[in-house]
């Protein structure tokens, strides 16, 4: 019984950290319509920043400044936000695809720095000895897991309430207006680029915070944690939950992480150890197909607030013709 509670706490902690990333993505994509396919890079920036600031001094690399954990989290948000703002400034005056390609490049470069800049990131072996909140409780795993869960719950709740507030504030309304009808919003005197850079930066800061939380939860980070598969998982979480809805982002994350962890357990039970790697790739295929199917048949996800468009029949054809001529 205690094992189950312990595992439940561990599962929920990971799922909630994911949901924090998804909340950041929801601000960028769901609310503002900015496409980020390099979010793993921003999560990694947060994790590494916080790790550098809080770990004890290490002769083999830069820093290890031994600062308090909260300073690490704040630092992660600042650096992640600045990185996202720079990315946004470079691309947001151009077509939306350019942002997608650039964020993709950001993730590649962050991965490269994590692997090769040994002096900064510890290279392929990563950074260990990251201080954990309630590390003193590690003797009793249950208590340790529950207290971690409480911390992550609190952070996610704060982020959720703040984002809910933001999306209803005048600021959030401008973002929605820009997403729905850019020309109309601009004609009302709103600077599209300025607002978008802000939204992208705040989203990036939230992702970086999630990365930092995760680093302090596991106590160890390595470049492998931030591969494109992470980006992909978070996207599926947001699409399943329904882009535009913060509640959807949280529930989608828990649901998809449940499916992911469950199918992982299933494959490790069904396949022989030497086939595990192959089975894991089948898991990714299944999630990839799931993403495409949801985009095709239920683009709003569970809780999405995008305006529904007719998909089939005469009305759909009329709408398609209209939109292609309108563009």
């Amino acid at each position, binding site marked *: 019984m205690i094992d189950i509670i312990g595992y439940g706490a561990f599962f929920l902690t990971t799922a909630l950290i994911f949901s924090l990333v998804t909340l950041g993505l929801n601000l960028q994509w769901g609310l503002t*319509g900015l*496409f980020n*396919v390099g979010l793993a890079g921003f999560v990694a920036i947060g994790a590494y920043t916080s790790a550098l600031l809080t770990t004890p001094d290490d002769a083999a690399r830069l820093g290890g400044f031994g600062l308090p954990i909260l300073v690490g989290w704040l630092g992660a948000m600042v650096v992640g936000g600045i990185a996202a703002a720079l990315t946004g400034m*470079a*691309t947001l005056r*151009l*077509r*939306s*695809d*350019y942002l*997608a*390609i*650039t964020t*993709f*490049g*950001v993730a*590649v*470069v962050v991965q*490269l720095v994590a*692997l*090769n800049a040994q002096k900064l990131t510890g290279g392929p072996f990563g950074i260990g000895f990251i201080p954990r909140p309630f590390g003193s409780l590690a003797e009793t795993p249950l208590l340790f897991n529950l207290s971690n869960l409480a911390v992550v719950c609190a952070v996610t709740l704060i982020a959720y309430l703040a984002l809910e507030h933001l999306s209803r504030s005048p600021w959030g309304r401008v973002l929605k207006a820009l997403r729905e009808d850019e020309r109309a919003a601009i004609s009302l005197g709103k600077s599209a680029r300025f607002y978008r850079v802000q939204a992208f930066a705040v989203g990036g800061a939230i992702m970086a915070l999630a990365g930092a939380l995760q680093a302090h939860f596991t106590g160890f980070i390595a470049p492998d944690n931030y591969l*494109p*598969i992470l980006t*992909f998982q978070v*996207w*599926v979480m947001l*699409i399943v939950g329904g882009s535009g809805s913060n509640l959807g982002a949280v529930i989608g994350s828990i649901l998809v992480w449940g499916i992911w962890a469950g199918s992982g357990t299933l494959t490790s039970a069904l396949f022989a150890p030497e086939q595990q*790697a*192959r*089975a894991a*790739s*089948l*898991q*990714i*295929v299944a*999630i*990839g*197909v799931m*993403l*495409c199917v949801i*985009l*095709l048949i239920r*683009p709003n996800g569970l809780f999405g607030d995008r305006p529904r*468009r007719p*998909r089939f029949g005469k009305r*759909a*054809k009329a*709408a*398609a013709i209209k*939109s*292609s*001529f309108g*563009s």
Partner: protein
Amino acid sequence: MSLQFVVDGLLTGSMIGLGAIGVTLTYSILRFSNFAHGDFMAWGTYATLAVVSAIGATFGRMAPIAPLSFGWPLLVALVVGMAFTALLALLLDKVLFSRLRSQGQAIIVVMASFGASMALRSLLEFTFTSRPTYFSRAIQIAMPVGFGIRITPDQIALLLLTAVLVLGVHLLMTRTQTGRAMQALSQNAALARIVGIDVASVVRVTWVIGGALACVAGVTIGILVQIRPFMGFDMLLPMFAAAILGGIGSIPGAVLGGLIIGLAEAAAVQLIGAEWRAAVSFIILMAVLFVRPIGLFGVRER
């Protein structure tokens, strides 16, 4: 600094350029950046490899053509692989992209291509495992051609093949009715429809050209480097950077962009170190976006 980087750069650049042609065509005609393009490359290469093995199993081993490391089976397999990749692209368009396109939200299509890319790549990993394979394990002796440059017969043959293909596509785009229809659709879709251009057939031709060239680029990488499920995904950033550097929609631009990025990568490998190679395309991409976002031969969007 040895001049060898010129040959290495031209080779990498021609592979990037061949891939970038497909990227630039999908972007300018279908109006979305296709993240699954790199995986077309990998699928084409594995298909070609499968056909080579099948030919080898049926007719026995055949000697390679004199100085090259490959023989007729590979050339036959390459044609089959190109057809297969073109069909794969058409199929993916039919079941996924075309349906999402008709909903009128371009960026959803990009996201779907990202999901499809993950699924395609992992399916390759599942079928062939992530262990690298090769078309041939024979080692070729590089011939010195002066100025400290060495080149293998394979490299010369593949450079020539690339040149022929690029010229062919360029002629197709500028001298045939289909090519003109493609250009018209990329420049002004609404007007192209009004003058009666068959959009569906142009879309098909786009996928066929993009898929077939992706397969050639993949097989080239397979012959000169190695075959891995991730081979195409790793080329994605260089291909996008090349397409944007050359100017979206321009085929000479895509090839020139590919060559520039290939040369820059090869120079960086010599000057800084091979581990930073992947950062080169990102730096070039950012420079283009800041200085001249329409690229070398691009036209301003309306």
